[in-house]
């Protein structure tokens, strides 16, 4: 099977674009990624498009209607917050399978404001606030409190995640926000679901990201100088665990994906120079230090206290600002974090560059559940 390389990758600056359509937002990133690869839509053999909000509305084809109706096959996919990673992985698989040599993956989302989840549905009466809460801040607060019960993790430690990621985003011009948020500001922000304050919840934004993936043959033909090698691509669903159907278990699904990804890449957590992981809420980031093997079980609190996950630390996490400050356009997130890691591996991340980065990891979780992990390597 051919190795797979990223030849072009980019994202738009995340923001709010109510005047634009979803395909228009997606088309922007698609063109940027094509330009980055030095190719055009006429060179693409297929398009893999990730979007949630208009999952049944042929977003991929409508992107082509914006930038070039070449008649290529289009796959539209939706997999909660793992949507972008799933589209990227479908593109990767088409090259692995030997079907295509050069394909485009696009993730795009246009979001409203406010709470996600907890809508209920079903017959009878609304259950929100009656049988607990199904809102996302609450669900991830409960997952964080499970960590607190096991290891004594504190509200302050969870809050430090948000301080770090907001700080990182001041160095990222494509992040939604570039604002420092000191610990007191984070802890004293409006409490949404204890222990997540408003500044510990990801930002609902509009955004898009795209990547051009090529086979090794094509990469050699077009030039490898800025290519990024895809060392592992893994997708898992939630394996059975005791409370999963009542309290979504984001740990088991991530651990399973991480183990497969390290095995596929032939590397271990100690080889990873930077990680973009799914900090949809500050509580979630803490869990994933352990789930991804960046530290031992029970060490995540110490890890954030000691600054090991800051830019300049042992393994910087979410130097883009993460979902907490860069923003979380659901369907775009999984490709935006591939853009971030690729940019470091190319040595093009400017002020937030992780020095000497050779290997990086991206991780997303779609609740319900899906986990997508990619391990990328610099080839320059």
């Amino acid at each position, binding site marked *: 099977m051919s190795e797979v390389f990223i030849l072009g990758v980019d994202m738009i600056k995340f923001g709010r674009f109510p005047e634009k359509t979803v395909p228009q937002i997606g088309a922007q990133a698609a063109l940027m990624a094509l330009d980055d690869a030095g190719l055009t839509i006429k060179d693409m053999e297929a398009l893999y498009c990730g979007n949630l909000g208009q999952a049944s509305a042929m977003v991929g084809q409508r992107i082509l209607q914006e930038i070039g109706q070449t008649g290529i096959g289009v796959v539209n996919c939706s997999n909660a917050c793992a949507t972008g990673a799933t589209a990227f992985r479908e593109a990767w698989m088409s090259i692995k399978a030997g079907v295509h040599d050069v394909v485009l993956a696009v993730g795009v989302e246009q979001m409203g404001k406010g*709470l996600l989840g*907890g809508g209920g549905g079903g017959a*009878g*009466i*609304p*259950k*929100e*606030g*009656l*049988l*607990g*809460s199904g*809102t996302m*801040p*609450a669900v991830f*607060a*409960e*997952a*964080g*409190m*499970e960590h*607190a*019960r096991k290891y004594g993790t504190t*509200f302050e430690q969870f809050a430090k995640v948000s301080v770090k990621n907001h700080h990182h985003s001041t160095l990222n011009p494509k992040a939604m926000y570039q604002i420092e948020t000191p610990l007191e500001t984070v802890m004293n922000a*409006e*409490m*949404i*679901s*204890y*222990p*997540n304050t408003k500044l510990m919840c990801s930002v609902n934004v509009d955004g898009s990201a795209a990547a051009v993936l090529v086979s090794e043959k094509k990469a050699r033909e077009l030039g490898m100088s800025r290519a990024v090698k895809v060392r592992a691509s893994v997708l898992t669903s939630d394996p*059975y665990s*005791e*409370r999963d*159907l*009542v*309290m979504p278990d984001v740990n088991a699904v991530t651990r399973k994906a991480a183990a497969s990804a390290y095995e596929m890449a032939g590397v271990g957590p100690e080889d990873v120079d930077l990680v973009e992981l799914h900090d949809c809420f500050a509580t979630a980031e803490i869990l994933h230090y352990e789930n991804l093997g960046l530290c031992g079980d029970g060490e995540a609190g110490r890890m954030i206290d000691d600054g090991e996950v800051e830019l300049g630390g042992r393994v910087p996490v979410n130097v883009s600002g993460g979902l907490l400050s860069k923003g979380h356009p659901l369907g775009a997130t999984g490709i935006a974090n591939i853009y971030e890691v690729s940019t470091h591996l190319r040595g093009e991340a400017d002020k937030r560059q992780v020095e000497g980065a050779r290997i990086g990891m991206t991780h997303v979780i779609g609740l319900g559940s899906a986990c997508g992990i990619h391990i990328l390597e610099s080839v320059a």
Partner: protein
Amino acid sequence: MSEEKAVSGPLPVVTWLKGANTNDPYIEGHKCGECGAVFLGERSTCSACSARDSISAVRLSTKGKLYSYCIVHRSFPGIEVPYISAIVDLEGGGTIKGNLINIEPDPEKIEFDMPVEVVFQDALGRKDKDGNNYLSYFFQPAA
């Protein structure tokens, strides 16, 4: 006149709350005879071990321990806050989620593994479009 459509006595808030219309309501689980996994709601196949046709209905305990929780301060319009959203492991198997009541919504007052009991009460006055009342379950600190 929607009130006319209402049936007598409360309806269950979820299908797995049984006996809503009696003085002996309870939570029903479905237990796998092969691996012992306990589910809420009817099913024929076990998602833990994939065994078929080994699932049977069991009456779940009203005694349990607080496994995890959060305190909800912002919810949708019209929903009273703050409240405690709690995950409770029941004695003998089964995990359910609900509101923890009769305790201050303050992390200083709430302890992991504190014993709680399941109590059955009206669903906070919520009615469906036909005017039906509903019976719900809640957790409270064990007496």
